[in-house]
């Protein structure tokens, strides 16, 4: 469940009041910046009570894995965490952990904002060499969006292909749709969790009311359960001690707080979190990316020409209004969308820094920065499309098969 997808929910009174007064409001169903439209991440860290992901942690990851850190880590895009230290301690001791992430298949079209957490999860799997489970919440989409079940299940499989195209290791990755996998150990855990959470708590996190259907009230347990290894006996056997690390966007944090609260009562350790900033819409921080607005984002099935047009026409520029103004004052990197996108996707630190200097000083022009970005995104999206064409229905079946994967725990 992402921020952009929960528009019908009524936020509880406190959040509404905060929004009124111009403060920022971040909940799993709504993201609003403060009075200036920007999200204050430091305030968020304080408000949510998460830990800041500092550079020394990034360096520790580099030391432990022997690989350079992902650009998202180096540039503070992945900026917060809960219990990441403990996961790294685990790893250092040779103990196991696994990754858990998910996707709500509400639309066929994925955009770059969706890809960011998925790409980061793939990188985590690669450098730590750990098992991964990916939940496709087709049931959630029928409950909230009123999608027909057949359509939700179809979208789940279609999204699955894009996920597989990001390069996960089939030996260690289990992708499942709720409609197919709920039952057995999964269902037993769902009931255990539901028993521990009151309606009041759920209402607070999800903004539910008395008129909401009962599926919505019970659903949070379905999304919480995969944090516990007992849900996957074909991967973990009867082990209860394998820890879970959840890469997600920061707006999911309130949701996983519920999960962490429940964990000890079920005899499990709390899942750890590693959290990302929001990916900006093309129109800038105040805009919202939406599957229904094609010009709000770059989509993974965009052609090279579409990418070029979108960046040139719609990517919000922080450059000067005129050439003279730009040369003299430089670009406002704080609000410049192409610059922000480069921070996400340009791997070359030195080159990025140079662009930042030159563009910030007004020596480099918006058009040139956009050209760099277009080249980069064309490569990334093109490669993704090529990978996706090679994902067959049988490959989807293989990733989704409930097959023994105990060897996924060996390194």
């Amino acid at each position: 469940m992402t921020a952009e997808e929960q528009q019908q929910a009524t936020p509880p009174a406190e959040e509404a009041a905060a929004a009124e007064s111009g403060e920022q409001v971040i909940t799993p169903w709504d993201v609003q910046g403060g009075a200036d439209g920007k999200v204050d991440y430091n305030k968020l860290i304080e408000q949510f009570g998460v830990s800041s992901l500092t550079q020394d942690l990034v360096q520790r990851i580099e030391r432990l894995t022997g690989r350079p850190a992902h650009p998202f880590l180096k540039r503070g895009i992945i900026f917060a965490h809960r219990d990441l230290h403990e996961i790294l301690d685990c790893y250092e001791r040779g103990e196991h952990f696994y990754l858990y992430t998910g996707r709500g298949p509400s639309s066929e079209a994925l955009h770059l904002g969706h890809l960011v957490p998925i790409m980061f999860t793939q990188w985590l799997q690669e450098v730590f060499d750990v098992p991964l489970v990916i939940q496709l919440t087709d049931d959630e989409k029928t409950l909230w969006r009123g999608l027909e079940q057949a359509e939700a299940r179809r979208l789940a499989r279609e999204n699955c292909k894009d996920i597989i195209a990001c390069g996960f290791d089939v030996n260690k990755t289990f992708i499942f749709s709720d409609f197919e996998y709920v039952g057995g150990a999964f269902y037993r855990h769902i009931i255990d969790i539901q028993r521990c959470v009151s309606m009041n708590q759920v209402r607070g996190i999800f903004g539910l009311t008395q008129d909401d259907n009962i599926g919505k009230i019970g659903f949070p347990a379905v999304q919480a359960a995969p944090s516990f290894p007992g849900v996957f006996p074909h991967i973990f056997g009867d082990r209860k001690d394998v820890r879970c690390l959840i890469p997600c966007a920061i707006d999911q944090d309130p949701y996983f707080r519920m999960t962490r609260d429940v964990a000890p009562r079920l005899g499990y350790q709390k899942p750890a979190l590693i959290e990302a900033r929001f990916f900006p819409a093309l129109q800038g921080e105040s805009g919202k990316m939406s599957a229904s607005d094609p010009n709000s984002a770059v989509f993974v099935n965009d052609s090279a020409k579409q990418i070029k047009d979108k960046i040139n026409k719609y990517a919000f520029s922080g450059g000067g209004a005129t050439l003279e103004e730009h040369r003299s004052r430089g670009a406002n990197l704080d609000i410049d969308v192409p610059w922000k996108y480069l921070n996400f996707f340009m791997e070359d630190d030195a080159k990025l820094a140079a662009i930042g200097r030159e563009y910030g000083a007004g020596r480099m022009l918006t058009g040139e920065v956009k050209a760099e970005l277009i080249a980069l995104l064309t490569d990334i999206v093109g490669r993704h499309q090529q990978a996706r064409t090679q994902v067959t229905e049988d490959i989807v079946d293989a990733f989704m098969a409930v097959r023994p994967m105990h060897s996924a725990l060996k390194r």
Partner: protein
Amino acid sequence: MTCDAQVEALKGVDGLVTKNLFLRDKKRRQYLITALPETKVDLKGKCSCCAAFMVYVEQPHKALLYPFAYKKQLFPAAVLSARLGCGKGGLAWAPEELLAESLQVEPGCVTPLALANQDSCKHVLLLLDQKLQAPGCKFFVHPIVNTASVLLDAAGLDAFIKGIGRTPIYADLEADPKIDKDNPPDLKQFADTIEPPPKDANNGDGSSSQVSSASSSQVNLPAAAAKATAAAAAAAAAGKQKKGAAKAAAGAASAKQSNAEHHIKLTNVVQRTDDIVDMVAQALLGKPAAEAAGSDGYALRRLKADVQMQLTAFKNAAYTAGYVAGKDEVVAYATRRYA
């Protein structure tokens, strides 16, 4: 000889016999516990106070040697195991080979003095019963050679321990402290000072680690389904077994598991990407890829990303072909298509 008979035989001797337990955890760290006979180390089984007894009585006309064989018991020292941070069932008797390898003594000859073998004992933690520190307490330990006994007190033993570069660690071995998230295991800090021995490919020492016992319980799957896993794994790689994979392990399920692991290692896409790109650069340009790319780091990164993507797609297709074949094998068997 039983413990009681032992104590009876030593009635006239001015000194206490010690019992020395040699245990190991799942990471193959070893624990040498030296305690007084009556100290209960929470062992289960008939003989609740000893694993190995070493008593020498130095009398010219008698050389009494009372070795006791290790007793196989489930979950020895469960409380101690938890206190060391190994979980309740984390400790097991160390097999004879470890005794020979680490302490370099014969079975029945376990003694703290064996830690003089500093190199071979670096994965051993020595844990001493704090009752040995009681004032006036003198106790026997076995010297490395079996022709005499050594009568020590705690100070003397400490001097030896410090002399070999260790710190003496005494604990109340009978304590049963509460362990929860606010009360971490009290002896774990000592266990953590010991490095586990490195893992090697031939790690099939029959140790019942939780993962392999979990997979043996999974062996209740129909044999054909287990074969399907093997078929899928076989389709994904060349197929020849290496010695590590074929090594006798604790049963069919574990053998299949190491097959799967072996093949998983062969499908490491990142390494192969680097190898292939270098191979091509070397063949066509006569130099490694990084050199051939020169200053254009992006071109090389993009190439590697493309190659890695293609290799992953290839791997997925191969894995899936094996998976489909495995499924078909099960269906064919069930429907007796080829009977």
